[in-house]
């Protein structure tokens, strides 16, 4: 059965269906529908919804709940996600699984409540202090918001890591038909959870290692895990790239607009396709390289000053990468992308 749902609500409902019963959060536009939806639904199904005193407290409540073995989540937008970085670093170090949703808005500072992709660096480079990464999932439809929110809890538990769902104000607010995933319960066994040491040795969830060698060894374990994630969990979508001469690289809302631009340009006879990373970290480097092998030009399109652009450049050394971006909450139109593709295609023809 398909339902018409807002992106934010689809995330919330999919999280419940993945067995998440604990939400801790703080109001901030444009993600507030997630918490409002859960404030209504969680008590109905015996879960806990708690409006925390701050973003900092909310993420630390998630830490406690996840450390006690539960599927737990929080959500916010840029300014709130910045506050949560302390807790996210601790979650990554303590290897506690959970879901964190960032419905991006324009920044820096308070910025604006309109959509942006300005938090790409923060999301994909860890965000807080220390050497760590988070799996970062970037949906491009309400259906995918539900699917990836659902997936994130299994992914988080399999790798014992917080997972970041990175979306934006337009995706969060727009309504689309969605087929929700079937309900599941529980999650995997957690032989590290602190739930009282009845009949077993005590367990400790911690992040302090006063001995540098011990901490380096823990860092090596984390890095090995990030290697596993990179090897097995990259996701991407390619669209009409088979015979493309120009490839657009875009994620999330931009990829959605770019898809329309691809269709429009194709109708005008211009061979263009789209490469859409779904995992922003681990970045689908090898797939991007394969996709780019046959095209003459690559254009990265983002709602920022060029952040994913750096990962595209790292993946394609020596290649000239075009960039088109808008900032501060301005959403790109298909016609802007079309004009830019046409421009670089003509310049490559001329060359």
């Amino acid at each position, binding site marked *: 059965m398909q339902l018409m749902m807002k992106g934010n609500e689809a995330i919330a409902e999919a999280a419940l269906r993945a067995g998440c019963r*604990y939400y*801790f959060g703080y109001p901030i536009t444009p993600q507030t529908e997630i918490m409002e939806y859960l404030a209504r639904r969680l008590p109905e199904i015996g879960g*806990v919804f*708690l409006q*925390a*005193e*701050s973003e*900092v*407290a*909310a993420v*630390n*409540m*998630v*830490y*406690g*709940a*996840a*450390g*006690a*073995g*539960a599927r*737990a989540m929080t959500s916010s937008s840029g300014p709130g996600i910045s506050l949560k970085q*302390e*807790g996210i670093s*601790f979650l990554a170090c*303590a290897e506690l699984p959970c879901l964190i949703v960032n419905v991006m808005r324009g920044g820096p500072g308070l910025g604006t409540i309109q959509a942006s992709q300005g938090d790409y660096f923060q999301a994909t480079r860890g965000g807080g202090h220390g050497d760590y990464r988070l799996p970062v999932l970037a949906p491009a439809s309400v259906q995918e918001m539900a699917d990836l929110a659902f997936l994130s809890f299994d992914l988080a538990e399999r790798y014992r890591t917080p997972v970041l769902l990175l979306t934006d104000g337009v995706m969060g607010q727009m309504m689309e038909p969605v087929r929700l995933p079937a309900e599941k319960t529980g999650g995997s066994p957690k032989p590290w959870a*602190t*739930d*009282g*040491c*009845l*009949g077993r040795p*005590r*367990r*400790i*969830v*911690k*992040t*302090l290692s006063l001995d540098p060698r011990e901490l380096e060894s823990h860092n090596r374990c984390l890095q090995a895990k990030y290697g596993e994630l990179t090897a097995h969990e990259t996701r991407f979508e390619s669209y009409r790239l088979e015979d493309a001469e120009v490839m657009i690289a875009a994620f999330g809302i931009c990829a959605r607009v770019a898809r329309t631009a691809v269709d429009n340009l194709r109708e005008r006879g211009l061979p263009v396709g789209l490469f859409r990373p779904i995992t922003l970290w681990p970045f689908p480097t090898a797939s991007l390289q394969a996709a780019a092998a046959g095209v003459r030009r690559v254009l990265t399109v983002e709602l920022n000053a060029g952040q994913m652009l750096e990962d595209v450049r790292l993946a394609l050394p020596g290649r000239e990468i075009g960039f088109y971006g808008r900032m501060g909450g301005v959403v790109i139109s298909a016609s802007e992308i079309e004009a830019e593709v046409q421009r670089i295609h003509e310049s490559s023809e001329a060359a």
Partner: protein
Amino acid sequence: MSRIAFARPKTLTQARFHYCPGCGHGIAHRLLAETIDALGLREKTVGVASVGCSILIYNYLDLDMQEAAHGRAPAVATGIKRVLPDRIVFTYQGDGDLASIGLAEIVHAAARGENITVVFINNGNYGMTGGQMAPTTLPGQKTTTSPAGRDVSRAGHPLRMAELLAGLDGPAFIARAALCNPAEAARAKKYLKKAFRCQEMDLGFSMVEILSACPNNWGMEPPAALQWVERQMKAYFPLGVFKDTTARATRGDESAGPEEPPH
């Protein structure tokens, strides 16, 4: 006939405390462990360590523990307790952690009446980082960041956390004790027992503030530090029970009768 007069509590591990001579943490850990033993809670308790000298408390307590970021122990404890409402959840926090960087977390956990127990060690300075001024540093008290003594006109006034939290509707039991002599230590243990009982009875938030010596950072010999607690700290931070709803909850139970008011 012989009997065991003194033994290591079951809840204490064999690890040797790393604390400085005369520090109150060792005594407080022991009182806490004895309380948990006495109530038979070890296997159903999850503790939360905070940032400060006592961060390694999980090396000394033989029960499940989580270590929280600086000041966040009440939020972490909230997460645990909401998932495991039938377990006993406590935090063990110092004054910098609880009264400064974690003020929002402690006030809101108390205001929610979160059914957790907070053991709050007030030694008037940041011990782990080497004795800086804390929110509980006394007026005129010298620390490394108030080298001329705390000037309240510039550095503000100390926070009386027990009184502050007792003014809220959420808490069920709030008391302050001092580790300055055996009689006061016994009183601290009595308060701890009451606080944990409070949680067992689902009455809501409980906190025991414990004034404690930090001779090393205070630049005092341990006996002089105990005297400082007895004379200086007690004068600013009066001992006693500031809030107690257990009497109401267990009417007829004499052992849980009302406590003496603060003095």
